[in-house]
């Protein structure tokens, strides 16, 4: 995917006329969305690639041009002055970087007909939160499942964890996925572009991409022109006294070589979160990350190496640490923590220590007109330790009392450093792909992928075993643009092999269990530009996933959920057929997009209570949850719309509804997001004194109570609905000639107590209260 080349011509009235073209072949692009950043003015390009924007205010504006299959392009353009038009035109041509070596790595946009949203680095910067999932939440249909302020898993259309794929630098992120307390180990400070794809993406990304995909692509590094530049950013969150620093530095063509390098680092430290009425003890966390990227070569032939390390220590709210279900019921009955903890940066057990190391090597080779060959190699290691709060009761061993006393101290020290559970997950990925473009608007690729994964378990918790897995996949996809239509289709076959070494608590022998699954993924889609201002996307996709190891072999108390989970080694693969229809409409002053989606699951895997067989343990009786398969369906709608009231004020609304049903039992599916709607007003003042692009954004988020749940299958009914207000003020200031970005956002302005159904702490504590977030970013080096 090559960036869009933008050609603009100007008229004397405040009217902006432009054409969007492909940078390589110069073909005019139809259906690209053009927005004036900060003003809600926008247009879609017509069949000739042209767009018109009227009543553009200010002496210059930043345009953001996006189109499925292309990288988002932001460009600042002047809006008045007729004499300098020609000059500005040529300058804008020079400024476009026609060749970005790594932009070829885009891994999600293989289907030009699916609803995607690309978050540019600047947008990520403006939305950046403590977790990656929270950074994505403003996209309709995307929510997050949280376990306190430091842990969040993204959810798309009610599907999360193993029903989504996240790719990082071209390879699928592989961490522990089976618990709601397992967030993806990706630093929200990484300098990247994020693509959110809603809908099945199994053909391109293989098993698990059922609900959608989130692709994190490091910003392109170019070896075209020599430069040295970087950016530093700082975030402060007042609610939990959180501070975060991030910076990156890159150099292109050092010593006149075909090389570009980037180094990146970030640090984060947070104390206990505060709800409006009390403090949540032991919810502090810290994290650091470091990474480096290198590009050698050019657009024809080159290699990109990308490595990152991410490490975090996360406190688990001490009020959430339950011994047994009676404790949980007592905590629910009390309605609030027993004591409001002091504000503290200390992290005590229970806590998680997680490190993720990732390395990807991507090579590409343009073989003339034949096509483009791409090779990817990925290695990653996820090292997760969970420390229990109950490690201190230790008896010395030995015959002699002195020896016993010494042994007891030694064992206590060991026990405090030993996690109750340690899981080391190592994954290798390899892929070879051949991309071809033919005359007549046909584009496509064929590829083969391989995977090897090894999990090593240690400690006293028996939820996942040691295992080794292999996978291979073979795929092909093609798209065809003709007149006002784009058609796409793809097919993929996959096979997965699993060998698990099973050893229960107290077992002296290990049994070996081997499993194998295979399935076909397929997709078909079309985009139809019905009018210049209206286009429609229709997609159908078949995707699948193998059962996860915990669903097969779990046999222990899952303390995060206060239930005893029992796996079933005979589980079959889960399959899904997803269908979605998206309509986009944009005329002057009004823009709307709606997506209807339906996913039918064949053998949906879920844990259901086995009321007949509660598990009696020395800690009391736990409800037994058995992993079973059923047919299920998820339907929903995402909606977003903006309306300009005047040149400076616009109103917007976005929301989503999801309905999940277990068709076998004819009851609602567990943990579906509640209906939500955000309405807001956006004020764009252009220049105020020396601040550019000043904007004020005030919005209300309303979330309904989740009334679709099964009585008696959860410890408490879903929490009541809530409304919170968010406010954001920001702009750009020139500091020493640099264009620095500054914003202040206030989440939950009125400090309202509320609980979200997707928060794991909803049983016993409120969500965090008012949070004032200060964000500051400044570029440095060559511009």
């Amino acid at each position, binding site marked *: 995917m090559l960036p869009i080349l933008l050609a603009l011509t100007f008229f004397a009235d405040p009217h902006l006329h432009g054409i969007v073209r492909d940078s390589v072949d110069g073909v005019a692009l139809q259906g690209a969305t053009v927005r004036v950043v900060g003003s809600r003015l926008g247009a879609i390009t017509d069949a000739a690639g042209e767009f018109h924007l009227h009543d553009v205010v200010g002496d210059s504006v930043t345009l953001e041009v996006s189109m499925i299959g292309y990288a988002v392009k932001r460009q600042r353009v002047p809006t008045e002055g007729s004499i300098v038009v020609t000059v500005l035109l040529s300058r804008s041509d020079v400024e476009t970087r026609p060749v970005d070596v790594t932009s070829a790595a885009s891994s999600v946009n293989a289907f030009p007909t699916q609803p995607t949203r690309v978050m540019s680095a600047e947008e990520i910067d403006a939305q950046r939160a403590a977790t990656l999932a929270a950074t994505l939440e403003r996209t309709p249909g995307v929510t997050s499942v949280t376990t306190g302020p430091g842990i969040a898993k993204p959810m798309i259309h009610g599907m999360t964890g193993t029903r989504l794929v996240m790719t990082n630098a071209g390879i699928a992120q592989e961490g522990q996925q089976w618990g709601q307390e397992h967030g993806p180990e990706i630093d929200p400070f990484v300098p990247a572009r994020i693509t959110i794809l809603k809908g099945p993406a199994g053909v391109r990304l293989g098993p698990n991409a059922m609900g959608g995909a989130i692709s994190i692509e490091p910003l392109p590094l170019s070896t075209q022109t020599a430069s040295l530049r970087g950016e530093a950013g700082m975030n402060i969150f007042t609610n939990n006294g959180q501070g975060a620093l991030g910076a990156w530095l890159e150099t292109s063509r050092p010593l006149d070589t075909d090389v570009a390098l980037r180094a990146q680092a970030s640090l984060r430290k947070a104390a206990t979160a505060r709800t409006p009425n009390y403090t949540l003890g032991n919810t502090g966390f810290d994290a650091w990350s470091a990474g480096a990227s290198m590009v050698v070569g050019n657009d024809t032939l080159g290699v990109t190496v990308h490595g990152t390390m991410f490490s975090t220590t996360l406190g688990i709210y001490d009020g959430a*640490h339950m011994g047994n279900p009676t404790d949980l019921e007592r905590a629910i009955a009390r309605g609030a923590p027993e004591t409001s903890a002091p504000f503290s940066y200390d992290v005590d057990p229970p806590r998680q220590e997680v490190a993720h190391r990732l*390395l990807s090597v991507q090579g590409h080779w343009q073989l003339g007109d034949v096509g483009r060959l791409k090779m990817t190699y990925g290695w990653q290691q996820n090292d997760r330790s969970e420390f229990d709060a109950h490690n201190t*009761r230790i008896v010395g061993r030995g015959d002699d009392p002195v020896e016993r006393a010494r042994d007891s101290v030694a064992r206590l020290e060991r026990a405090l450093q030993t996690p109750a559970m340690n*899981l*080391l997950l190592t994954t290798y990925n390899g892929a070879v792909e051949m991309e071809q473009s033919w005359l007549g608007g046909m584009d496509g690729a064929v590829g083969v992928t391989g995977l090897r994964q090894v999990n090593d378990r240690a400690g006293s918790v028996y939820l996942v075993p040691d295992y080794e897995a292999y996978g291979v996949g073979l795929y092909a996809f093609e798209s065809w643009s003709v007149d006002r239509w784009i058609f796409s289709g793809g097919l993929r076959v996959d096979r997965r092999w699993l060998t698990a070494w099973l050893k229960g608590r107290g077992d002296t022998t290990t049994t070996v269990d081997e499993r194998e699954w295979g399935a076909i993924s397929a997709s078909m889609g079309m985009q139809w530009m019905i009018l210049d201002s209206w286009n429609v996307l229709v997609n159908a996709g078949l995707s699948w996933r193998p059962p996860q190891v915990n669903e097969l072999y779990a046999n222990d108390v899952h303390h995060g959920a206060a239930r005893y989970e029992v796996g079933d080694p005979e589980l079959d693969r889960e399959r899904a057929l997803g269908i979605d229809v998206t309509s986009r409409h944009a005329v002057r002053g009004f823009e709307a997009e709606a997506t209807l989606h339906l996913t039918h699951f064949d053998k949906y895997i879920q844990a259901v209570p086995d009321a007949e067989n509660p598990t009696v343990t020395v800690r009391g009786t736990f409800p037994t949850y058995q992993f079973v398969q059923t047919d299920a369906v998820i339907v929903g709608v995402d909606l977003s719309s903006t309306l300009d009231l005047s040149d400076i004020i616009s109103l917007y609304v976005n929301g989503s509804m999801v309905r999940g049903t277990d068709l076998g039992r004819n009851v609602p599916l567990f943990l579906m997001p509640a209906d939500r709607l955000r309405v807001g007003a956006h004020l764009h003042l252009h220049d105020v004194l020396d601040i550019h692009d000043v904007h004020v954004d005030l919005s209300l988020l309303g979330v309904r109570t989740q009334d679709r749940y099964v009585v008696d299958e959860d410890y408490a009914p879903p929490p009541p609905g809530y409304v919170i207000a968010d406010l954001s003020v920001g702009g750009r200031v020139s500091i020493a000639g640099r264009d620095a970005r500054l914003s202040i956002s206030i989440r939950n302005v009125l400090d309202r107590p509320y609980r979200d159904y997707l928060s794991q702490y909803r049983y016993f504590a409120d969500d965090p209260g008012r949070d004032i977030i200060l964000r500051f970013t400044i570029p440095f080096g060559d511009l």
Partner: protein
Amino acid sequence: MHAWHGRFFSRFIPVAVAVTLALAGCSETSTHPDDDDHDIVTTIRLDVTDTLGNAVRSWTWEDADGPGGAAPNRIDTIVLSTNAPYLCSVHVLNVLAEPDEDLTPVIVSEGIHHQFFYASTLTGIVVTYNDKDANGRPIGQRIRLSASEAGKGLFIIELSHFDDAANKNGVDPSDETDVRVEFPLHIQ
């Protein structure tokens, strides 16, 4: 062959080799022990004497393979009479360790962080604490028990863990239950 091949492999291959070498040092095996040193509770034993100290009997609740796996292998029925009060002590053991471990002394020595609680579905069962922690609050490892009415029901023993000793008030259990077992109880 085409000259591009040479250039491509001269770049891709060294990088791939360097990466492979760098990763060869990374183990796929966890550095932590497979079965850790944490003590788990498998067995609760209730020793009962009369008020003169004469042994009456012991009753045991045991899940020898720990939580999960097989169901508890032994749950004795406690048989007592209405005649006289009893002195009882509760013992917490781990039979998965070799040899068996008695965790009771550790619980008593960390008495400010622990308390046993007792309950019964029968009326007329009266339990009074017979010990105190360093803060003067009951531990409940030693109790005095009397029964006034005959019947069959359950006797429930709970051990609460208090991370913060300040939260232990001697009356309310904590939210961190270490032990909760139910013995059938028969009062004659």
